[in-house]
């Protein structure tokens, strides 16, 4: 007999209804390689919850990793839950069915732990919707002993205050070890039948776990300061540090991932070749949050590729990282994979750099014939590229484009941001000029080129050098979009842009504090869902929600912060020091660039010393020496720093 706790809708009931929703296969599971254990016979049941649709969630590498790590423990059963599309939400409510897990169709509320993946601020209303559909009280304070523990991890957990009222504990940093620690603590606590507060205290004792209810927030002129509460002798840490894996090479990896029955957004095998990025782009949160760089050994990459292809049947494998051309053995790895060609598979590289080397790699992969090439110069003018530390010159961009056209590409997509700190109309127009020059190069090479300019609005993110900067207001962003559009007319030039209203909403929540919880709940109650989907987001409902809860969105999105301001995420440490971030912001204003520490010298972000970790390059290559972080560096080294921002010094990077 099945344990009644774990009984959701029966298959016979469900299948009479699923014909009414779009893509019903989102809810049926049955993936090859999915793990189904008997939920009643394990100590801890864990629902890995992804607050977006199935096809997006099943492509998320971090969730794949955690799913296999947790299911490798014999006392844990980990199942998956995705955000149902709006028609399915309606059906669930209509039938009075709870949101259920994919594997066993067990109600979300029956799990011991629900772990949300926080990839993007605009999924927050979906999180509330999933809790609500699971019959779980939204607010932590309303949950009692019979309710699941609600935790969340991922990049947004590093600045999670808008969710602090709804999530019991946040898991910061690399999850491979931390997830195991959490379920172990949970198991012990469950055996001893302790109280919920006791559980939270124990979790707060783990490195990398932040329990917001154990902190008071003081709001004053200084900012929003989180103060640990005294709990009968227990005081949580003043600063919670994110967990960092020392080495990726011996970290567990899903070499037998589950294969969805409907195509995920990334329908291919994925092998993470390194974690972290120290290119140091100043707008990029991932580049600050996942330091230091830790590479996998090429032999390990090779083995994982073979195992995944054999197990999955995929005909393509992607070598994943934040900047795949930076991998120390990228050329060797790609040529070996192509030469030995395991299972006749294609190889793809996401996120390539803007240079001839990367174009050469793309050419090796033979994608010129089938698809276009994507380059991300991020800004149109040299001045702006220096300001954001995107260390690439116009010559390099043009060279990369020329190599692309020579290699047979005729369709080039360029990614840019507008609304960057200090941007002028000239900088915006330079985007159009750059695109036109690239089109000219294509024409000279005898092509009929298409150059697609894809522009998104810059959103300042916590833990980056731009965390002090205001986001440009939507009307102004729209004006710049129009300016660019009018400059981009002509055959072979295409313009795509993101909705300015969406960027503004993202900017509110990215740097939000705990007071935003009320607005979030109000928006959820007004029916806001899938805020990241331009055809679903309801900005008027959001405005109402802000108004009703007395929140001024501009305070969060469009305000420049003072240097001393205490941020709502200052008690959560990524490892990169705030002083480093400030220094980077100052350099940005002077359009000075900073090198990548993989080039040999530490740039003093602080994580290696403070967290006792180091840059791990594959093949026993030496990482940067840590002797002289810039604070302590002798004056002549500082002079070099300034040189690095000079026009001429760009020569330095061109060989890369």
């Amino acid at each position: 007999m099945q344990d009644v706790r774990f009984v959701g809708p029966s298959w016979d009931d469900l299948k009479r209804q699923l014909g009414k929703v779009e893509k019903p296969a989102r809810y049926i599971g049955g993936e090859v390689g999915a793990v189904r254990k008997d939920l009643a016979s394990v100590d801890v049941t864990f629902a890995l919850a992804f607050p977006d649709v199935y096809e997006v969630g099943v492509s998320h590498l971090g969730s794949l990793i955690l799913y296999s790590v947790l299911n490798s423990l014999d006392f844990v059963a980990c199942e998956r839950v995705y955000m149902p599309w709006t028609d399915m939400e309606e059906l669930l409510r209509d039938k009075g069915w709870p949101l259920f897990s994919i594997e066993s169709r067990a109600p979300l509320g029956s799990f011991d732990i629900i772990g949300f993946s926080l990839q993007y601020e605009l999924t927050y209303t979906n999180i509330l919707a999933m809790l609500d559909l699971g019959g779980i009280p939204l607010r932590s304070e309303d949950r009692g002993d019979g309710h699941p523990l609600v935790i969340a991890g991922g990049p947004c957990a590093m600045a999670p205050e808008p969710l602090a009222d709804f999530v019991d504990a946040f898991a910061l940093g690399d999850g491979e070890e931390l997830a195991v620690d959490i379920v172990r603590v949970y198991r012990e606590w469950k055996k001893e039948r302790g109280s919920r507060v006791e559980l939270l205290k124990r979790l707060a004792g783990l490195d990398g776990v932040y329990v917001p209810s154990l902190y008071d927030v003081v709001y004053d002129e200084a900012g929003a300061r989180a103060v640990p509460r005294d709990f009968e002798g227990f005081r949580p840490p003043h600063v919670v540090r994110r967990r960092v894996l020392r080495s990726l090479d011996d970290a567990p990896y899903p070499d037998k991932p589950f294969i969805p029955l409907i195509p995920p957004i990334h329908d291919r095998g994925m092998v993470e070749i390194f974690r972290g990025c120290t290119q140091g782009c100043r707008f990029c949160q991932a580049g600050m949050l996942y330091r230091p760089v830790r590479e996998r050994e090429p032999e390990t990459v090779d083995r994982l590729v073979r195992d995944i292809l054999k197990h999955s049947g995929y005909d393509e494998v992607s070598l994943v990282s934040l900047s795949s051309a930076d991998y120390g053995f990228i050329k060797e790895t790609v040529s070996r994979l192509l030469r030995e060609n395991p299972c006749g598979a294609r190889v793809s590289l996401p996120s390539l750099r803007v240079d001839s080397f990367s174009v050469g790699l793309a050419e090796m992969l033979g994608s010129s014939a089938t698809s276009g090439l994507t380059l991300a110069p991020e800004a149109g003018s040299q001045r702006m590229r220096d300001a954001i530390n995107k260390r690439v010159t116009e010559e390099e961009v043009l060279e990369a484009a020329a190599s692309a056209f020579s290699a047979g590409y005729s369709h080039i997509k360029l990614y840019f941001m507008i609304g960057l700190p200090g941007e002028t109309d000239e900088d915006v127009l330079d985007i159009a000029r750059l695109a036109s020059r690239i089109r000219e190069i294509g024409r000279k090479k005898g092509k009929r080129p298409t150059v697609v300019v894809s522009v998104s609005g810059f959103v300042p993110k916590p833990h980056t050098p731009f965390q002090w900067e205001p986001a440009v207001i939507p009307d102004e962003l729209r004006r710049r979009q129009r300016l660019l559009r009018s400059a981009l007319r002509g055959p072979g030039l295409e313009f795509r842009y993101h909705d300015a209203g969406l960027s503004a909403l993202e900017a509110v929540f990215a740097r939000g504090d705990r007071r935003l919880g009320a607005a979030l709940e109000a928006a959820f109650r007004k029916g806001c869902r899938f805020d990241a989907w331009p055809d679903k987001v309801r900005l008027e409902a959001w405005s109402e929600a802000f108004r009703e809860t007395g929140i001024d969105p501009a305070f969060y999105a469009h305000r420049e912060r003072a240097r001393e301001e205490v941020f709502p995420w200052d008690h959560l440490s990524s490892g990169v020091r705030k002083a480093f971030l400030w220094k980077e912001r100052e350099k940005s204003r002077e359009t000075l660039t900073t090198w990548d520490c993989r080039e040999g010298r530490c740039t003093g972000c602080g994580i290696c010393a403070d967290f006792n970790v180091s840059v791990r390059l594959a093949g026993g290559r030496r990482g940067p020496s840590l002797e002289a972080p810039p604070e302590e560096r002798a004056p002549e080294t500082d002079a070099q720093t300034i040189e690095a921002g000079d026009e001429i010094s760009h020569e330095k990077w061109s060989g890369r």
Partner: protein
Amino acid sequence: MKVRAVYEKGDKVRFLGHLDVSRCIRLALRRAKWPLEMSQGFSPKPRISVYAPLPVGVAGMREYFDASLRGRPDVGALARALASSLPEGFALHELYPIGDGEAPFEEIVRASLYSVDVEGVKIEAVRHALNGFLKARQVFFDVVRPKEVKRVDLRPFVLGVGEPEEAGVDRVVLDMAIAHDKGRTVRPQWVLSSLGEFDLDVDPREAIIDRRKIIFE
């Protein structure tokens, strides 16, 4: 060498669309390490044809696909490898070599035999509606596609309907034979919908429909 497989798209995978089914088969064949012959060109694809598309929601007990293979591998071994690679819900029933001279599949398909299981209806009402439908000379149905609405006459496609049987309280099961005409056919759900014209109130989306078999000439 070319082989033909008779497989099942079972109850658990009824909600896959035709492209999803083709993708699942392709991945399973690769896991089973079949020596698939590839097409020429920039992005070579294995030469597999999955026939007689079933709509989302409809299961199929005896479905067909062909695959072209390199060399002359042992068919028994291929069958064993595939049977253990297919996702749960699929099954392999038969596998046999076919000659190159075989007539194109779509040309020899004559009909599909479906079983249709509806709830919330009285058997008399079903009988009455079916009689009405079968007596009519034309029964039009509007197929709504993203960019157009196409009107089809369902009547000539419905070759015959079996005697409805009671399968529980207000639950009726019946067989339906639907013609294929040079690749054109209609869906049993459309026929159910059109029974509204003959006073049968049934939501075709709640019907459980299985294709029991495909009938050849």
